Each structure stands twice: as structure tokens, then as C-alpha cells.
């Protein structure tokens, strides 16, 4: 239990100060992070008690950790506490702390010197004033939603009272994490100063500032939406509608966050806080939150785990990109954002100019949206130069080849790269399916050729799949991993082979979806079943997005290699008939004013029978997802994947596997024997591609 008396207090101390301005310094012992746990809560409660007793003129909350205020609740703790009621009780202790801070009779100021997320920002919210240092490490917000939780340290109550309901809804429901300057614009902090002036600014404010009342927004409209019941109801109904559309019922947290704000504004803060505590307990013990938290932790650990078994390598400072198309320009822009100097090549001026324009518009968009400031956008653009010859490539440490997915082209370009690259440069080929060993078959130095599978659009997709061919040196692989991480991506390392990991599993699933058309299923029924299940798009919509030619090429590569190629490739048939996908206006769907299924698909494939529910006892989404999971486990069994963690990260970040399920391996764990039984039944009915993978047949658990 969490009664303060029984917990050893540690991590915060009260310092009275000689000039009437006291400090509470937060500094968790023997830990590099200020995460909120019971000892810290107890210490803060005691420090606040000391402060009240001392009665200073003002009080500053400061962190002794560099680049970090308070990070939020200790996630490992949340996932291990067994009962909802215990977690709710912990929330109530946090509530007592923030309420006591808010009730202090003197001016309180939070000096935010770094991360202030979740509970960390809620602590700051309880103060009268918040001042942030203008440092890149500063991130401010209530991102609990992204972990399947809600802010439960009073955040759902105090944020709308500070910045108004509309803005609070946006910040909480999207889990935004803002830089200091954007936090200032959003009203989350009152002042931004140079980090070196932070302490002085906080003390000045504590000495001269006033106690602060509740505003509920900066403009009359915001205040009306916060305080006037009808306006508020409108804002809530809008938010609920949007949330229902986005979550499709798979994520309960946003609805509960709305409810907490709604109760708090209608019935008062105490009722709101009580709802917060209850809801947080329920959410924190739910499978959804535990899966999302597990994924988040996997992502954090992957930064180190990606380098498992590899030598340490530093990220390249200068990279070359060959091919200035969609992928090439996207890779170039991401590298430039990461501060690398980029040389981009394509065969003619027109292609180079298009690539440079793409870099420019991506960077300018990011500048407009405030991802970074506009001056940084200009510098980003300037870091990329383009050329139609091979000048400037001899000084690059990493050269990424991103030309058309055709083996002869890739081999030829690789040869050209080898002729200009410096002897110690690493060459990475960006391909979604072609085996790297095949591409590097004629390479003079195959030991420095690796694969880097980027996902489109590069600036948004968080995954890079580094492909390790047998001949590649560990140093080359390590440099590709370091480069991917420097680009801000989560990097997984997989063994070479057709489709590697990601394309192999998605390819298997897409192939199965087209077989289901043959069985009489409707395009739109399968897609709808998949989105209802939690996939971002269905397989046919996906193929229309990437283009049918590309999809069929990737599919063939994978199917041939896996020995599951059917006598005809349905997607190839359609592509050859001119159905290219969304960009050409017609694919599995027709893209006119309104999108509708394309009847020509059935005609071209010679399919006549169409049934409403053709799938038998197992629905299309369960069937396709089971096949996907089975193929993922096979990748692990075959040694394509190094770990279940990389399998889950790859599937969620690269392929849109429903995050609330945690990834194929966590899903397999949760389903246990049910999955095996389902696969066995499907194998009997549809063939041995459904035969459970060894690990599934053996009932292996992938995560402890």
C-alpha cells in the first residue's frame, strides 16, 4: 500500500534559502531520471509540508538532473502493479501532493529545465507559474494517451482551467509533446528564457509574482468553451466524434480523458480528480495500455538492442543518396534534418531538381508546422546538394542507393557507386524485397554492402529495417544501424532474404487477401474487416496506395522465394491491364469523386461468385492477422529476426500492425493456444501455409 508514512521518502528536498525564496529540489538518488514513484511522492509531500511550515515569500520547484525536470510516472511500476484499486490509490496520493502545492499561500514557480511530461508537467501545473529554459531537451505535455492512459495527476482538470478546453482537448487527446517555444505559444508555460537564466528568472518570478487564479483560456472564445455549458457540450461532442472515428473502439483512454474533463468542469475538480483516479486504475491494468507501454519500452530498449552483437559505430556526418525520387529525396531530407550533409544524385537535371524541390517542400512544411524553426528549415535545405554526375560522393561515409526496384538497375548503380566511393564508405541499398546478396553479387567489395529498408513517407515512418547479408562486415552493419538511429528512426536488424522480415509478412498477408477474392470475398468487405479489426488500412487499399506494379513485384519476389507462388499473380494481371492504383485513378478501387470498388477487378480475374460472408467461422480479419502473425513467428524461427521485440517493433512501426495488440509476438502470447487452434483449423481448410510455426506449435512464450 502507498501510505506515505510507510514508504521511505527519497528524491526531493526542501531548501529554505536566505532571501525569502525557498526551493524544492527534485533529485532522485541512484537514478539518472526523475521518474515519479512512491518514495519520490512521499519525499515531495514532506518537502511541501516543510515549505508550508517555513512560510517563505516564494517557492521554486527545480530539478537537479541536467536536461530533465520530471519525466512522469515510472512505467515499469505501472505495469507490474496488479490491481486497479492500488493504482487508483497511488493516483490519489499524487492528487494530494498537487492539491497541497496548489493550496500553498505563497507564490510557487516551476523551473522547467528539460523534460516535463505527464506527472512531471502535472507537478508544474499545480504551481502558479511555469518558466522553461530554451533548450532542445525541453519537452512539455501530457502524452499519457499515447500509452493507453490518461493524465491522472490532475492534468485533465488543471490543463483546461489553464489554457481553455479546446486547446486542452487537443493537447491531451493527441498526447502532444511540445518544445519550449511551442509550449509558450500554447500557454503551457508563462515564459521561456535562456537555460543559464532559468534559475534567476524563476526566483524573480517567485519574489515578484502574484498568486494566480483560474482563467480557462486566453481568448473570450476559449473561455466560453470552457465555462459555458452549451459551448462546452459542443466541444465535447466534437471531440467524442473525432475520437470514435480514430480509435474505432480499440482505445478506451481518449473517451475517458474527455469524460474526466467533462465531469471536472461540470461538477468541480474533486469529482474530476476522483474520476481520473478510477479511470487510470482501470486503464493501467487493461491489455491495451500494457501492450502500448510494452511497445514504448521496447522502442526505448531497441536503441541499445539494435547494436546487439555489433561493434560500436558512429553515425556518418556526410552521406550520399543515389536516386532523387520519392524515397531518395525522403531519405536525403531526413538525413539533413538530423544535421548530416547530403549529396544526392540522379541521372538528369530534371530528376535532381524534382528531388531538391521535394526536400525543400518537406522542410518548409516542417518549418511551418513548427517541427523545427524556420531558420532550421533553411539550414536543412542547404545541407542537401544535388548533382547529375558523381562529384561529391568520394567523401561520403555512407552512400544510400534508392533507385528503381529492378535488380539489373540496382547492380549497375552499385557498380557505379563502387567506382567513386572511398574505400571505407559503406553502401546501403534501399529495397523492400530484393535480396541484398543478389544485388551485391557482382560487387567488388560485398563486405561493405548492406540493406537499409526505409518506409514511405520517410519523414513520417519511424522504422528502418537494416538488412544484413551473409558477406557484410559487422562494421558496415553497425554504421547503417547508427545512421538509421541518427535519423531518429527505430532500427531493427534482420537477416538477408527475399522480403527480409517486413515485406515477407505483409506480402504473405496480401497474397492471402487476393486468394480470398478468388474464394468470392468482396474487396471492400475485406478492407473494412481489417480496419475494424484495428489495421490502419486494408490490404487492397494498401496496394492501391503503393501502386500495383510495385506490390506485385514485391509479392512475386517473396512468394517465389518462399515457394508459395500461385500459378497466376492476380495483382500482376491487374497491373498489366492498366490498373496501377490510386495515382492512376484506378486499382482495386476507382478514384473518382468518391472512392468505390472497381468491378473490373473481378472481371479481369474471372471471378463470378460473390458472397456476403464467405469466410466460415473465422472472420477475414482474424484469418489474415493469424497468417501475418504465423509468418512473423516463422521469421523468428528461421533466424530472419533476432528477437520478438524487433518483430513487434517492425510490424507496428513499419506495417501498421494494430498497436493496441502490442505486435504479432505479444498478440501470439496473448492468444496462446487459441492462435494455434485457429491456424490448425485454417490449415485444414485452406492449406499448409497456415500450418502453425514451430514456436507456435510448441507453445513458446515470446515475452516473460
Amino acid at each position, binding site marked *: 500500500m502507498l501510505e506515505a508514512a510507510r514508504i521511505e521518502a527519497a528524491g526531493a528536498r526542501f531548501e529554505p534559502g536566505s532571501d525569502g525564496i525557498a526551493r524544492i529540489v527534485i533529485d532522485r538518488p541512484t537514478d539518472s531520471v526523475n521518474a515519479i514513484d512512491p518514495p519520490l511522492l512521499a519525499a515531495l509531500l514532506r518537502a511541501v509540508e516543510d515549505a508550508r511550515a517555513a512560510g517563505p515569500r516564494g517557492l521554486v520547484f527545480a530539478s537537479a538532473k541536467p536536461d530533465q525536470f520530471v519525466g512522469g510516472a515510472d512505467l515499469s511500476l505501472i505495469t507490474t502493479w496488479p490491481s486497479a484499486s492500488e493504482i487508483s490509490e497511488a493516483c490519489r496520493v499524487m492528487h494530494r501532493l498537487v492539491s497541497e502545492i496548489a493550496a500553498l499561500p505563497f507564490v510557487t514557480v516551476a523551473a522547467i529545465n528539460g523534460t516535463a511530461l505527464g506527472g512531471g508537467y502535472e507537478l508544474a501545473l499545480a504551481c502558479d507559474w511555469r518558466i522553461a529554459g530554451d533548450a532542445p531537451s525541453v519537452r512539455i505535455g501530457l502524452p499519457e494517451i499515447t500509452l493507453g492512459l490518461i493524465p491522472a495527476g490532475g492534468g485533465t482538470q488543471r490543463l483546461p482551467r489553464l489554457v481553455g478546453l479546446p486547446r486542452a482537448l487537443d493537447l491531451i487527446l493527441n498526447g502532444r509533446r511540445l518544445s519550449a517555444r511551442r509550449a509558450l505559444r500554447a500557454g503551457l508555460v508563462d515564459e521561456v528564457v535562456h537555460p543559464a537564466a532559468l534559475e534567476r528568472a524563476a526566483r524573480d518570478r517567485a519574489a515578484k509574482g502574484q498568486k494566480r487564479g483560474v482563467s480557462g483560456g486566453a481568448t473570450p472564445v476559449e473561455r466560453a468553451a470552457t465555462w459555458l455549458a452549451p459551448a462546452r457540450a459542443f466541444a465535447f461532442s466534437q471531440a467524442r466524434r473525432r475520437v470514435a472515428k480514430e480509435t474505432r473502439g480499440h482505445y478506451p483512454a481518449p473517451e475517458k480523458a474527455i469524460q474526466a474533463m467533462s465531469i471536472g468542469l461540470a461538477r468541480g475538480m474533486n469529482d474530476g480528480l476522483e474520476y481520473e483516479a478510477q479511470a487510470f486504475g482501470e486503464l493501467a491494468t487493461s491489455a491495451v495500455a500494457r501492450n502500448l507501454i510494452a511497445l514504448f519500452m521496447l522502442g526505448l530498449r531497441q536503441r541499445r538492442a539494435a547494436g546487439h552483437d555489433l561493434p560500436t559505430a558512429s553515425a556518418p556526418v*556526410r552521406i550520399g543518396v543515389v536516386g532523387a525520387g520519392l524515397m531518395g529525396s525522403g531519405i536525403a531530407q531526413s538525413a539533413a534534418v538530423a*544535421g548530416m*550533409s547530403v*549529396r544526392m544524385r540522379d541521372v538528369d*537535371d*530534371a530528376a*535532381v*531538381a*524534382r528531388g*531538391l*524541390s521535394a526536400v525543400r517542400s518537406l522542410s518548409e512544411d516542417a518549418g511551418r508546422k513548427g517541427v523545427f524553426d524556420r531558420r532550421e528549415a*533553411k*539550414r536543412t535545405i*542547404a*545541407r542537401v*546538394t*544535388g*548533382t547529375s554526375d558523381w*562529384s*561529391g560522393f*568520394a*567523401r561520403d561515409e555512407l552512400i544510400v542507393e534508392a533507385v528503381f526496384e529492378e535488380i539489373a538497375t540496382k547492380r549497375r548503380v552499385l557498380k557505379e557507386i563502387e567506382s567513386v566511393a572511398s574505400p571505407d564508405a559503406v553502401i546501403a541499398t534501399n529495397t523492400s524485397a530484393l535480396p541484398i546478396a543478389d544485388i551485391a553479387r557482382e560487387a567488388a567489395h560485398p563486405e561493405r554492402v548492406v540493406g537499409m529498408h526505409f518506409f514511405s513517407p520517410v519523414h513520417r515512418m519511424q522504422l528502418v529495417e537494416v538488412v544484413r547479408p551473409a558477406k557484410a562486415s559487422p562494421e558496415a552493419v553497425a554504421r547503417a544501424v547508427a545512421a538509421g538511429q541518427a535519423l531518429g528512426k527505430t532500427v531493427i536488424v534482420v537477416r538477408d532474404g527475399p522480403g527480409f522480415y517486413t515485406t515477407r509478412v505483409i506480402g504473405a498477408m496480401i497474397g492471402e487477401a487476393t486468394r480470398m477474392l478468388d474464394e468470392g470475398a468482396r474487396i471492400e468487405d475485406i478492407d473494412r474487416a481489417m480496419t475494424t479489426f484495428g489495421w490502419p488500412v486494408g490490404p487492397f487499399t494498401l496496394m492501391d496506395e503503393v501502386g500495383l506494379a510495385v506490390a506485385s513485384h514485391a509479392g512475386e519476389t517473396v512468394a517465389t522465394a518462399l515457394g508459395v507462388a500461385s500459378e497466376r499473380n492476380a495483382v500482376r494481371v491487374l497491373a498489366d491491364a492498366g490498373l496501377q492504383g490510386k495515382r492512376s485513378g484506378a486499382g482495386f478501387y476507382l478514384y473518382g469523386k468518391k472512392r468505390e470498388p472497381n468491378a473490373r477487378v473481378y472481371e479481369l480475374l474471372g471471378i463470378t461468385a460473390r458472397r456476403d460472408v464467405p469466410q466460415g467461422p473465422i472472420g477475414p480479419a482474424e484469418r489474415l492477422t493469424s497468417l501475418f502473425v504465423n509468418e512473423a513467428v516463422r521469421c523468428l524461427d528461421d533466424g530472419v529476426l533476432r528477437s520478438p521485440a524487433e518483430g513487434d517493433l517492425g510490424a507496428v512501426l513499419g506495417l501498421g500492425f494494430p498497436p493496441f495488440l502490442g505486435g504479432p509476438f505479444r498478440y501470439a502470447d496473448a492468444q496462446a493456444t487459441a492462435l494455434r487452434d485457429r491456424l490448425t483449423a485454417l490449415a485444414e481448410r485452406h492449406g499448409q501455409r497456415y500450418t502453425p510455426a514451430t514456436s507456435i506449435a510448441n507453445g513458446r512464450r515470446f515475452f516473460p
Partner: protein
Amino acid sequence: MRRAVIAGGWRTPFVKAGTDLATADVLDMATVATAETLARSETDPASVDEIIYGNVSRPVAYHNLAREIVLALDLPKGIYASSVGMACASACVAITDAADHITVGNADAVLAGGAESLSNVPITYTPNLARALVRASQAKTLPRRATSFAGIKLSDLAPVAPGIRETSTGLTMGESAERMAAINAIPREEQDRWALRSHQRAAAGWDDGRLKAEVVPVPRDGRLLREDTHIRRDSTLERLATLRPVFDRSHGTITAGNASPLTDGAATVLMLSEDRARSEGRRDLVAIRSYAYAAVDPADQLLIAPAYAIPIALKRAGLALTDVGLIEMHEAFAAQVLATFRVLQQNGVGEIDEDRVNVMGGSIALGHPFGATGARVVTTLANEMRRTGTQFGLASVCAAGGNGAAIVLELLN
């Protein structure tokens, strides 16, 4: 003794002011020339010590354009940078300063060059209005602020564009060139012949790829600009003869056809110590053998100073004019080029062999972005010396104010 060598140089296309590069400012062009010089010379930016850059018509925002290049390209922050000015010879100063820094051992790698956007000259207020604005900004009360503008007349409100006019003489460049033509008795026909030659040789230089090799593309509005836009392939003596004199309408000889045009562009040269260049395995090095500056009374022959700088530079190089196989001479005006030839001869420096001069045309055809021209001239000369195996070359640039520069290059083996 340490020697400074030119390891390579590249420039943007030279484009008629107010056209394709009008919306690019001077920094945009300077960054392209510099980034491409680094890339094409395969140079690690971390190995560069310094940037020295020339710019004449300086935007208020770029007090030190050279340093803005470092920051805009996000080059290593430790590269110090200074901007230099000697009007049209600014980039010559950048290059010779760089050579000095290298030869005395203060630097091993310097980027030197210059840029000009004559599409974007800084337009200023009249002195009366400017002083009133400063007074108003310093005023503490509203009435005081209002009275700051009390003495302003209507005529003070018109913006002032910088003229290409000598402050000391009040004469424009063109008027000064008319004087030179008259003093040296250079007839209109000779000037037109020189202008035509400039266009013809520039066209040939593009056609056989020699000029293409020194020009890097500038990305603009979704395409790459690659070519100089001034060269008139359809020019003839007859057509040139029909143009009316611009500066002295009744007796003049100088027309838009035999003068250099207003131009946007930038050029950068990579200069290394010979040791550094050799240790990096660079070949075809061209060294700065000597240089000289000279100056004359602007009221006399404003642009004649190269005729005095050239013999000094040659003397310092231990060479005679006849030892020089190639000459790149900036063509502000055809009259100025021909007057320089004449004065060199009169002063006993020697007779100029025209076939060795501006073999790919000059500023009349290629264009003349003030700050960049010196680097363009040196780059063209060094490239042509490498190509033809010419041991010695001479570059000269005249400048407003009566200054002139001469640089002697030597091809090393």
C-alpha cells in the same frame, strides 16, 4: 617556401540581373557556389580553415557575407570568415588574402570567392529621412517622435538606389569609360569588334564544354539553372553598330553592346597549401606565383590601374609579358580593355598578343557580378592553363575608385 595553390573553382551561371535569379539573394548564390566547390573538389568541410568572400552591393542583413555562408551551409562552426571589398576586384582580394594566409602558414585550406546580386541592390532612404527615422526611434515621447519628422520635405521620401557613380568625380562608370576611350583614341568600331569577339569566344567555350566545366547548376523554382544567359550568339558588327551610345548620346562610343551587363552570380575557389594539396593526392595544381595591386587618380582614367599592376606582378614573378601564355582580363568595357593594351605598350611593358587574351570570352559576354568576377577570372584561367599545359597565366581586374589587380598563376607539375 610555402606556396598557395588553387585546387579548384566553380561558379554559378552568370544570369542577367532581374531575371532567373532575381528572387535568389546573394547568400543563396554564394552558398551554391561554395557547397559545390566543396563537393566537386571532394573536400571534407572540417579540413577548411577559413572563408574569405567579396561582395560589393551588400545587403544590410549580411554585414559579413562570408560568415553567413558558413552558417547557412551548416559548415563546421569553427571556420572563421571575413568579407572583403575592392569593388569589382573584391574576389581578387579574397584570393590574394587567402594566398597570403597560406604562405605565411596561418592557414592550410581557404575558400575564397565572391558573389553579387544586382537584382537585389539595397535601396536606401535619403540622408534626411534616415536621420529623422533614427531620431524618432530614439525619442522617448510620442510628440517628440512626431516632431522628428518636422524637417522632412516631399523630395526626401523617394527611395535612393545606389548608382554606379564615382563618389569623388560624380561620373558614372560609363562616363569614365568614355573618357578612357577618348584619351586613348579607341574608335567605336574597335570596341564593337572586341565585344563581338567576346560573344563568339564565349559561345565557343560553351559549345566545346570548357565553360560548362566551371559552372554548377543553381536549383530554382523546381529546375536547375545551368547556363550563362548573356551570350549573344546572333551578334554581328552590323547589329552592334546600330546601338546608340548610352552615356554620351551625342559624341559617345560606349553602348549596351560593348559594355558588361548587370549580372547575378557567385564564384568560389578552393585554395590549399601546396603541401596539403600534395598530401591529399591532388593533381594539376596551379600556384599563385605573384600578385600586385595598383591605383590611379579616378578623375583621370578610372579603370586603367591594371596596366600599372601588371608590370609589378610580372616583376615579382620574375617574368616578362611574353612569358605569359594566357591572359584573363576583366572586360568592364571593351574600351577599357583596349585602353589597357595601349597603355601597357606605351609604358614599354610589351605588346599584348590578343590571341592569348580571354580565350573563352570575357565579362562583356559572360556577365559581371561585381563581387564574383575576380574568382571567375582566376578559375577560368587556371582551368585553361591545366587543359592546355600552359605554364604561366595572368589575370587582371579593374575596379571602381581607380584600383586594379593583377595575379600571375603558375601550373605546377
